[in-house]
């Protein structure tokens, strides 16, 4: 963490301030929504927005304190090195694509491609192993969820075509 010269990355302080601001923004949204729902204490006890309103206020207030604390402490530490973040993003980005593609391609096709990509790219496995896991897992999933427990999972054009 302390070795700044060799490995660069975003400072812990910057990220922490960013997170704090995001939380405060969330608090403001909550307050806005609560005001819309009614925040006063009616004849029958508190109304729908009463609790969320104060919860929102607490979020904003706590964030303000956290922001101040984050500004004060400056040990120059890194949040993470760029190489580490690249590792993290190499999971987040494909997962995001996977999640985004789910409604259109269905679960099975997307999962096959996702598992295959992950194993081939990050694990450097042989194609045979990759194919076995990438096809085996969705098939087992299909059997357990759809056949056994009768829980329908999202399907796309391929499943439609296969008549599943």
């Amino acid at each position, binding site marked *: 963490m302390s070795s700044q010269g060799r490995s660069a990355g975003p400072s812990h302080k910057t990220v922490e301030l960013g997170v704090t601001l995001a939380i405060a923004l969330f608090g403001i949204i909550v307050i806005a929504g609560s005001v819309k729902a009614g925040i006063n204490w009616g004849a*029958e006890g508190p109304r729908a927005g009463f609790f969320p309103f104060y919860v929102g206020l607490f979020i904003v207030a706590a964030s303000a304190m956290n922001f101040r604390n984050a500004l004060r402490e400056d040990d120059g530490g890194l949040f993470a090195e760029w190489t580490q973040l690249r590792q993290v993003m190499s999971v987040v980005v494909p997962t995001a694509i996977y999640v985004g593609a789910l409604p259109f391609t269905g679960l099975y096709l997307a999962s096959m491609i996702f598992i295959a990509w992950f194993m081939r790219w990050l694990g450097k496995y042989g194609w045979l192993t990759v194919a076995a896991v990438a096809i085996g897992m969705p098939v087992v999933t299909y059997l357990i969820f*759809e056949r056994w427990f*009768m*829980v*329908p999972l999202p399907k796309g054009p391929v499943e439609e075509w296969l*008549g*599943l």
Partner: protein
Amino acid sequence: MKRFVRVAFAAGLTLAVGAIPAVAGWEPVRPVEFIVPAGTGGGADQMARTIQGIVTKHNLMKQPLVVINKSGGAGGEGFLDVKASAGNPHKIIITLSNLFTTPLATGIPFSWKDLTPVAMLALDEFVLWVNADKPYATAKDYIEAVKQAGGTLKMGGTGSKQEDQIITVAMEKATGAKFTYIPYKGGGEVAVQLVGNHVDSTVNNPIEAVAQWRGGKVRPLCVFDAKPMGYDEPITEGKAWKDIPTCKSQGLDIEYLMLRGIFMAPRAAKDQVEYYVELFKKVRETPDWQEFMKTGAFNTTFMTGADYAKWVETEEKRHETLMKEAGFLASN
């Protein structure tokens, strides 16, 4: 002999093959999703799972029937899901009164007209219950007590701005008495709150309170229907569902029945609707279904097609009036 058998078999085969298209024009080719716009364990859920069990046990469908709960936003989640599945014949939904109340109270963009009506399976009765330790013997006694108490007596019910609260408001309007209405999550919980004396009365469905009645913990005062229920098998101390007087005969002129009906997604073809109507007719004929109707003291009215649509339309108007009067409509 052998030849005869072969001929007979062949004849039987042609007969059987020829018979199939004549009986059913359309059939599901994939598992049918049975949406329940309420949580697991509630009245609608129980009915849906009973139907699923009957269909499986008596082999009434070639494809499986899969029950899915979509209870978010007082069932709005389920209704919007079916509304968005236009033209999908593999999705049906069972409804309760939240078919009307949820869009009115929350303002979500949905109306029953977005769906295709299939059939009314039964109507659920509502009964006014009090704790058995309390002195109220008739509905009149109780209403008198409520008036005396000036709004401090508590009515427990399922959900807010839904059927139980609508009945409560209707009672207030009819009698001038005032209740404190307390909403709970489910009917079973409401019944137990009555036994524990945390509320003073409930308007539970028969199936929700029958166990406590048999145990001698609660007392039915009247039923919100035009005529007494038809089940004369004694439940407790020689009393049967039939012996509960109508609320009208007690001077409380309110009728309320809850729809337990089936709808399909928008733009369903005629033969698809036909298939489900036939299916539910078969379900209704099974002894398991009749047993279930008896346990819950349901009103077994069955309707399909135009009759059903008309009934739903009248009910919707009624709910709109009732909820408008009670001030339950969504503000936006």
